[in-house]
């Protein structure tokens, strides 16, 4: 078996004395969309931060493309080709849409910039329309598109998305998931997605993990998890899909 692009092994993290993650193991293979679902406070975002080196793993390892990254500073991890759209979007509100996208490409050779920008604008035409507008004045869905677009400007080998559907109308959320599927199919983009919106996330993903209180309780293919009675009960409103 080929080595996974991202391999999380036995990661444990703490907030002060409180342990947040307990021995997390996750694989993300090249070209896959993998999702992690879980309730509020399960530790999904904590795992994201552990991968990016913001809140470091106390035990365990994180390997990217065979290289250990759990002791590297965040900006160096990002430069390896991991791009993150952090929780709550975190766009730069007082900078224009265009400048936000530019910031996404700070680590990239400027010669790619024009092409990449055109690619993002083709993906999210609304961003081109609003390119000179302050990012803070965009609607929630547009901001999310901007956050994803900004992350894509860094030409990631692995895109980490933290709750892209948070606070979005179902239709807008669906549009964003469709775009991700499209990107995965056409460009082979590898995505690791953390979501509360289990139904959409599991339908999109080839594989999924379920996290409860800092531990992974279930894993399997997207459709297996969708049909799993426990997942149905806990995350899909009880009705079997």
């Amino acid at each position, binding site marked *: 078996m080929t080595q996974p692009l991202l391999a999380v092994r036995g990661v444990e993290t703490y907030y002060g004395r409180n342990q947040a993650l307990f021995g997390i193991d996750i694989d993300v293979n090249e070209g896959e969309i993998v999702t992690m679902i879980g309730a509020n406070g399960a530790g999904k975002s904590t795992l994201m931060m552990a991968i990016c080196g913001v809140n470091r793993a106390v035990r365990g390892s994180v390997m990217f493309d065979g290289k250990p990254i759990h002791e590297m500073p965040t900006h160096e991890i990002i430069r390896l080709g991991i791009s993150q759209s952090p929780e709550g979007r975190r766009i*730069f509100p007082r900078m224009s849409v265009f400048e936000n996208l530019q910031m996404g490409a700070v680590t990239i050779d400027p010669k790619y910039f024009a092409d990449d920008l055109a690619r993002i604008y083709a993906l999210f035409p609304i961003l081109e329309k609003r390119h*000179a507008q302050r990012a803070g004045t965009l609607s929630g869905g547009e901001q999310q598109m901007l956050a994803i677009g900004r992350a894509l400007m860094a030409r990631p080998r692995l895109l980490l998305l933290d709750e892209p559907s948070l606070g979005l109308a179902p239709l807008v959320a669906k549009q964003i998931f469709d775009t991700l599927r499209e990107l995965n199919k056409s460009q082979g983009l590898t995505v690791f997605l953390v979501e509360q919106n289990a139904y959409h996330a599991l339908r999109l993903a080839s594989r999924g993990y379920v996290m409860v209180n800092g531990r992974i309780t279930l894993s399997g293919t997207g459709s297996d998890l969708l049909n799993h009675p426990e997942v149905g009960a806990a995350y899909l409103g009880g009705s079997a899909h």
Partner: protein
Amino acid sequence: MSQNDQSISKVLPILKRSVVATFIAFFLFLPTLGIKTAASGGVDGLFLQYRWPLLAIGCGLVFFGRIAYELMSSNKEGKQQKQAAPSALARALGSSKVAKAVAPLLLVFGLIFPFLPSSDRYILDLGILIITYVMLGWGLQIVVGLAGLLDLGYVAFYAVGAYSYALLSIHFGFGFWMCLPLAGLLAATWGVVLGFPVLRLRGDYLAIVTLAFGEIIRVVLLNWRSFTGGSNGLSSIPRPSFFGLPFNQEPGGFAATFGLEYSSLQRIIFLYFLILALAIFTYFVTGRLRRLPIGRAWEALREDEIACRSLGINTVNTKLSAFAIGAMFGGFAGSFFAAKQAFVSPESFNFMESATILAIVVLGGMSSQLGVVFSAIAMVGGVELLRQLQFLKVIFGADFDPSQLRLLLFGLAMVLMMLWRPRGLVSTRTPTVFLKDKKTVSAAMISQGRG
């Protein structure tokens, strides 16, 4: 209801609010204007002097001021909600077109200023002072305006620059042009020294530590007598010369060489152009920097540090470079200050200086270079203007000193600014790079973001 009743129902609440305002003002003014302690000269020490007319004038001003304000704002009602639409002037200053026209005009004025017939020694000194503050403002703007790091101890770098020049020229006989880069380098080093411990701090906490840093530098200068001369300061610092020609009456001096009649004004004019050149240099460097990736990274850092990190920006280097470059310009200005005064002492570098520079940046608009010029003129020139208001003595009595009102007006100006233009005189931020068309979005139009 008749016309008369309607107008009464409008006027009454205005009157009521004005009376309330006057009532509050009365109690505020009672201790500040109404009562004065005076020395009796005798054994009983101090006694209270009551100044009822002054108190009445103050309350009257508030009463009628409030009525005028109410009438003005009631005229506006209906047109728009309280949303502070940017005034035409401010909007004009913010747009890059007008800024491009105003900046050269200011420059031309700056160049001919010393030769205007009205420019005597006093006016020139004031001009030098204002330009020094403009330069300091631009330096601090990098740290506070662009990188969003609230620095209350900026004067420390000014002090480092001043003492660098003083010590290097006294002990090693270095000339001004040699000291200038060294002073900048030393100040930048201290900027990094300050930057390291505060990397993880933001907002209030950062402000407190930088404030302490400014005081530490001052106290060290005050107490390290053998090195800095303590509170006596360092005097007889060599003055800068014009390419080796000193400004004196000797045969080899500036005046003699150029066949001019000696005048002490020549040295002042030279200093004026020196600081003007330094300020223009600062303008271009800081203006250029904010268009470079590093400047964009500073802005992004101000907006969202976590997002910056998740985009692969090295936030440590970015912060330190902001501190270092901001400090460097403080060092240049300090070096000039020492050269101009030929005397430095810790007294010149107290917290008030930091506060003034910060106020200039905040008042001018966090990211407008032009705004800093106008606010420096208002802040520094305005204080000088107060000294000129001697005619007020006719109204308020002979012992009235308008320049004592400096801090009061300072505070008043700040409050008014916060009410009407919370983002500074020139609050629009021009996107630094354009794809197709230029467009600025007024800051006042969107809700107040995270400071």
